[in-house]
């Protein structure tokens, strides 16, 4: 068995261990929020009811139904058993919908929003950063402050600015939702047009943030690489500039891959606030509402999905990095000996 393989096996075990801890935290943390979820539900369903006895029995029914009357460790056993069967429980707030069903509905919207936005922002940011570093002069004078400006603004401010500018001052794009009010999800032209219109502003606000961060990183890395000794030596051996630029940008890109994969890892949680600002019906909004309603199973379900994607992407990062960068590979195999 090669050292390289051993390294990943060991890493894998560590990730598994982390996952177990994450499951525990996912269970326990929501339950530390003040307030009893059943109170919220009761407040809704008992509006106008006066019979104290029936209210009490309803309350106890709910407590039993949600297993909230059991001690915490028993609840946890039920939860873990459920997780391993792919059952994340029943939502309190949207009773009797299953957590998996709610997440299943929200997830595609989140991914459709985030994935293209992250990739687009990453590509544009890197290209701009590379141009700024290589062309210098006016390009750098323009791109550098711009990316610096963007990346120093809190990201939700963009969402709000875009919302204000393009849907309130100029009513070009709708201000909330994922598609037109009252529409059915179907494969028709009006629906698609509506979905794209609703998609644009949240998409742009994520893209801008990505461009800012990635652009700065890429510029720094490229400047560093452009001044490396191997660039000079390659020139002195008569290698053409276009080839040297390839060397440089390949090397400068390597750390940027981290940026991409880590962003992809937060694909679900990263746009949380953007989704909330635009009332986009993705996982972010679901989670936000779940937290407001002390919907333990739904909160745990959402955070579990988030933890799993982050763990998977970090693991992939390890694997991919070792493959593309011989220095990292060397470090990985050394760790064992």
């Amino acid at each position, binding site marked *: 068995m090669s050292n390289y393989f051993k390294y990943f096996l060991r890493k894998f075990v560590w990730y598994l261990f982390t996952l177990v801890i994450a499951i525990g935290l996912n269970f326990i943390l929501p339950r530390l929020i003040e307030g009893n979820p059943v109170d919220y539900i009761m407040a809704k369903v008992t509006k106008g009811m006066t019979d104290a006895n029936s209210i009490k029995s309803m309350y106890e029914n709910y407590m039993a139904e949600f297993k909230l009357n059991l001690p915490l460790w028993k609840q946890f056993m039920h939860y873990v058993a459920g997780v391993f069967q792919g059952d994340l429980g029943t939502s309190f707030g949207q009773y009797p919908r299953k957590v998996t069903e709610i997440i299943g509905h929200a997830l595609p919207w989140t991914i459709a929003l985030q994935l293209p936005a992250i990739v687009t922002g990453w590509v544009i940011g890197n290209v701009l950063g590379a141009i700024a570093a290589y062309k210098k002069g006016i390009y750098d004078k323009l791109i550098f402050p711009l990316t610096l400006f963007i990346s120093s603004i809190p990201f939700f401010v963009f969402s709000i600015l875009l919302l204000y500018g393009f849907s309130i001052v100029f009513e070009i794009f709708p201000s909330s939702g994922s598609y037109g009010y009252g529409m059915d999800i179907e494969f028709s032209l009006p629906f698609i047009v509506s979905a794209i219109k609703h998609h644009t502003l949240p998409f742009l606000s994520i893209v801008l943030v990505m461009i800012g961060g990635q652009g700065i990183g890429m510029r720094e890395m490229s400047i560093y690489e452009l001044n490396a000794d191997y660039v000079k030596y*390659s020139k002195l051996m008569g290698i*053409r500039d276009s080839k040297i630029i390839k*060397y440089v940008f390949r090397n400068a890109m390597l750390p940027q891959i981290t940026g991409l994969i880590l962003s992809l890892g937060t694909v679900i949680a990263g746009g949380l606030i953007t989704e909330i600002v635009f009332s986009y019906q993705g996982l972010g909004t679901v989670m936000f509402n779940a937290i407001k309603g002390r919907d333990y199973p739904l909160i745990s379900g959402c955070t579990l999905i988030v933890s799993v994607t982050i763990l998977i992407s970090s693991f992939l990062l390890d694997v991919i990095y070792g493959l*593309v960068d011989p220095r990292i590979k060397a470090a990985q195999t050394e760790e064992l000996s």
Partner: protein
Amino acid sequence: MKLLSVQELKTYYKTRFKEKIVAVDGVSFDLEEGEVLGIAGESGCGKSTLALSLIGLFAMPLCYDSGSIIINGQDITQLDKETRRVNVLGKKIAYIPQAAMNALNPTCRIKNFIFDIMKEHHPQMSKEEVYHLAKERFKDLNLDERVLEAYPNELSGGMKQRTVIAISTIMNPDILVADEPTSALDVSTQKVVMRMLKSLMKKKIVKSMIFITHELPLLYHIADKIMVMYAGQGVEFGTSEEVIFKPLHPYAVELMTSIVVPEVGQKAQKLSSIPGAPPNLKYKIDGCRFAPRCKYVEERCKTGFIDIKYNEERMYRCLLNRKVVDEVGA
């Protein structure tokens, strides 16, 4: 046969603040086929700049001002950039950078770097042919051929240095310029590298060599002729014997006496370094550049232009009477 002739070469760095640092200021010398020329001088005197200028690749911030670099009768400063890149670099004149350890792209296998070089200069050669050539050359130079498959980070410092030497000379350049090829190495690796450089000459892989160092004793073993540089100028030029054992320019004298030739079993040690610091090359300097640090300085040294010229069969840049220097020195 005269392989390289450098005449009144003047090059400078253009700084961000638009200052001109004239790091090579009117350097002239000839290099015959089969000869090794040593260039010595203190840090910052312009050795590396001269080396880079000789390659003829002027890239910011290094700029060409005037003078000629004639290789085999052709002035390479007059060639356009593209011709120079394809026909001169690595083919007529090749360079081993001062920090050769870092000269290799960390994410490129050695063989792929060689492929890339050969693609520029011999595009008709197939990858197999290049690989074969590289393997033969590595064997010839006592380098493990497995190095070809390696990434730079898998090689030791000495190995990297030797690999860079092998890569630089893969196209049998007429002239090899080695900039402090042994400075960063331990003594035993230094020896290996020196042997390698000598064998490049012996095997006629390179016709002539320029060896740059600040360690004069090293030159004794490899150089036929030596040029001593000070503040961007050549101040003395002669055979190794002459310059090492009977230097004439006061700076060369100081440079030599500040180093003891080691006796058997005794480590070489620096007795003293020359007091004072070399002048800032940003400013125009009137008179002899070494005058402020020279023990024998006279009033006439401080103004006008002092040329390097023959004086009783020897070539150096000094106005003083040899007798005076010898008497004060003794």
